[in-house]
């Protein structure tokens, strides 16, 4: 399995506080990796660093062998890495479908085209296909402001997925989603990602979700990765349990 | 030898009035994060109220020197009445709205105040030279200056120092600094943010009105003086940095001297130079000389 995403000695501090310290991980293509850790352990900072939102103080980030350390989010996304956010980042004055169509247009390189409608038959159809696994297709014409919290979260994930990335980073994809929906959505999502060979890295607090879907877990604690391996093994480790739960 | 002296004196004279207006603007922005387009109207209001009170007082036949307190009283009244009214009725409801909306609301206020002044005082210009004439003139480097102008510089400087001390030295002033730094935390600490905002806005209004009143006897007080005042105040505040009093002082000095120099040396580009400096600052150092507040740029 080829390494698709790799960090080497990745370090970032804010003021005097070390958020991510000397993190070196390698993720193989097609893996489904879960990132766990207590609040403030550096998980979201890690995602922000990898996707270019923050510049690391030290270390490198490699994507398919290419150094992307200094790249801004725009470039990182264009290369094939997409992400969803802990607090959903969506277009609040638009409808659900409009949100997705914009993502599709961006992916197709047409984001700057000032003529020709955004709404084309082909694009609409694809948009609905993107929304379907998340149960959002029936809400396509509704303004985002009318969606319940869980729906907004799912839309955020859908927007990342619409970009057809090679690597998908999800920051707490199921938080705010009802327990009933969680597994249905994760089932569908993981299946689609597997079908397409997409590498998934997701930050998660729900241990059930992590154990069910992740083939591998990274445990963050105070900015470092203290454990890396299969969920059953890692989560059985008493030190890990103390760090994550205690 | 006269030209540099003229530039310096004219520049400082210009600068101190600008400082008073800009100080008010920057104070309000710091505490409330609202850039008040109507601030120039408060300056005009002060000019009208101040000169009007002088005229009214002189009609009573009282001792001449008391027209100066009358002038100041006008400014105080103008600021103290409009300040709380505007802040509570207009600005507080829109605190959480987009910047665009806030700009438009203050622009509406500007339109309204323009006509309010016309309704009260008519459209004919006021020439109230009494305070200016009473003190006589003095010759400096061969140019005639009025003692009033020099007095104006002193009063404005004094006010600036007073305001600066008040902000640092009084509890109220420190609360303003707290709210400027972080509104949420200040509220959490028990500071009555609403009251601080009203106070800050009123203080800003009084400062602007004072600037207007002091300069009233030197100009033709007529509709429209607010229009140029606000753009110049913006320029000063941008140059000095939003939310900074020191910045307002330094910015006012730069603008004042630049304009005085341009008037003497390159009259064609007189107006343009000030705005050019503003543009240059916005481009190369958007937060201004002393500004700490973040400029939104991506």
């Amino acid at each position: 399995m080829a390494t698709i995403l790799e960090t080497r000695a990745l370090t970032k501090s804010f003021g005097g506080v070390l958020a991510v310290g000397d993190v070196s991980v390698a993720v193989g293509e097609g893996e489904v990796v879960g990132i766990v850790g207590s609040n403030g352990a550096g998980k979201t900072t890690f995602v922000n660093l990898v996707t270019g939102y923050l510049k690391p103080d030290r270390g490198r980030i490699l994507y398919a062998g290419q150094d992307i350390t200094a790249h801004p989010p725009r470039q990182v996304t264009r290369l094939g890495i997409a992400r969803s956010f802990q607090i959903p980042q969506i277009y609040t004055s638009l409808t659900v479908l409009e949100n997705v169509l914009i993502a599709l247009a961006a992916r197709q390189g047409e984001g700057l085209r000032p003529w020709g409608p955004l709404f084309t038959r082909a694009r609409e159809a694809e948009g609905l296909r993107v929304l379907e696994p998340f149960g959002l297709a029936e809400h396509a014409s509704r303004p985002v402001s009318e969606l319940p919290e869980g729906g907004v979260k799912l839309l955020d994930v859908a927007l990342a997925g619409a970009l057809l990335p090679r690597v998908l980073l999800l920051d707490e994809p199921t938080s705010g989603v009802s327990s009933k929906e969680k597994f249905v959505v994760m089932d569908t999502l993981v299946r689609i990602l597997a079908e397409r060979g997409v590498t998934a890295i997701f930050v998660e607090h729900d241990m059930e979700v992590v154990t069910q879907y992740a083939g591998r877990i990274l445990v963050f604690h105070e900015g470092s990765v203290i454990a890396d391996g299969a969920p059953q093994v890692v989560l059985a480790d008493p030190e890990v349990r103390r760090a994550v739960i205690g | 030898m006269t030209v540099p002296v003229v530039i310096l004196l004219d520049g400082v004279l210009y600068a101190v009035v600008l400082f008073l207006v800009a100080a008010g603007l920057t104070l309000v922005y710091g505490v409330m994060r609202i850039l008040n387009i109507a601030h120039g109207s408060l300056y005009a209001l002060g000019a009208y109220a101040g000169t009007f009170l002088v005229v009214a007082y002189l009609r009573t036949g009282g001792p001449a020197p008391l027209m100066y307190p009358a002038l100041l009283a006008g400014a105080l009244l103008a600021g103290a009445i409009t300040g709380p009214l505007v802040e509570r009725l207009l600005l507080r409801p829109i605190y959480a709205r987009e910047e665009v909306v806030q700009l438009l609301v203050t622009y509406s206020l500007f339109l309204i105040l323009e006509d309010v002044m016309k309704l009260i005082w008519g459209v004919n210009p006021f020439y109230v030279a009494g305070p200016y004439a009473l003190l006589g003139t003095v010759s400096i480097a061969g140019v005639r200056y009025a003692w009033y102008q020099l007095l104006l510089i002193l009063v404005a400087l004094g006010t600036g120092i007073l305001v600066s001390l008040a902000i640092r030295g009084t509890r109220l002033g420190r609360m303003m600094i707290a709210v400027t730094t972080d509104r949420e935390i200040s509220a959490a600490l028990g500071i009555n943010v609403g009251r601080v905002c009203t106070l800050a806005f009123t203080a800003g209004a009084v400062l602007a009105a004072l600037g207007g009143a002091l300069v009233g006897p030197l100009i033709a007080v007529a509709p429209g003086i607010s229009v140029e005042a606000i753009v110049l105040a913006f320029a000063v505040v941008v140059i000095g940095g939003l939310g900074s009093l020191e910045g307002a002082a330094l910015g006012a000095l730069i603008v004042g001297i630049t304009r005085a120099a341009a008037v003497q040396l390159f009259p064609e580009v007189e107006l343009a130079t000030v705005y050019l400096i503003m543009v240059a600052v916005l481009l190369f150092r958007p937060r201004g000389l002393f500004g700490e507040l973040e400029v939104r740029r991506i």
Partner: protein
Amino acid sequence: MRPGPVLSLLAVAAFGVAPLLLPSWVMFLLTLALAKSVVVLAIALLLRGGLVSFGHGMFFAAGAYTVGLGMKWFGLQEALVLAALGVLVSAGVAALLGLFIARYRGIFFAMLNMAISMVIYALLLKLYWVTGGTDGLGIRTPTILGITPDRLNLRLVMYYFTLALTAPAFYVVDRFWHSPLGFMLRAVRDNEVRVEYMGSSVGRVIYASYILSGALGGLSGILTGFSVGHIVPELAYWTTSGEFVFAAILGGAARIPGPLVGSISFEFLKSYAYKYAAYTWQMTLGVAMLLIILFMPTGLWTISELLTRQVRPWPPSSKPAR
């Protein structure tokens, strides 16, 4: 609500027959309102991106003065040539300024536009040997497609000329608003981070929109210049820009007919107010704008929609505290 081709054609037809039904002084106001509606459209375009410009007078003036100077210094006569030239110049100015302006938002964007427009105002005023200074420039009657309109029909011809150039401008913007870039602009307003995380450049979106907005501003100045016959540096003053913003809010920036409704309402409001209440017309405008902002943020155009169904509030009426 997209007017749809039928409604648009009806609107154009209505404007087409208006001269047969309305007195000539109304027609003149209407001509001006149509001409200015294009710059109001330009403002509305930027408002969609969450940006307000208090300096569009500079594009307005750029277009108008290109025509004036083109006539005076180069002896150009043909209206279409002058118009094309004017639009090119104002688009060029926008392209140049946009290079750095597109990096700003909020009040800094507004102030930067205001400041630059004041620089241009100052230049127009002071370089009087080129621009005519405070006296301004006269704009003679142009030829239209080579033909000089005769005196008697001049106003009528200018009306139809204005209509002929305004309608396509609205059409272009309507297509723009439904295009990917048009939606991107709204996306930028809602969430810049997400736009960047879709691989698109926020700066480029704003830059492209700014150029279009500048070009429209220029066209508006050109049309106004032709109709009024005289242009002055005050066109670039910030209060002129303020009036454009006001008309945009009055009519509403969310729907295509908004700027048209806003501009017409504004011209007539201003005209009546000037005439009957010279001391209170600004106050009337100010109060009207406040009422609209506070109670009807979508503008006058959507009154009919308000009566029939729920309209999504726009702009969003609350923002998380900073």
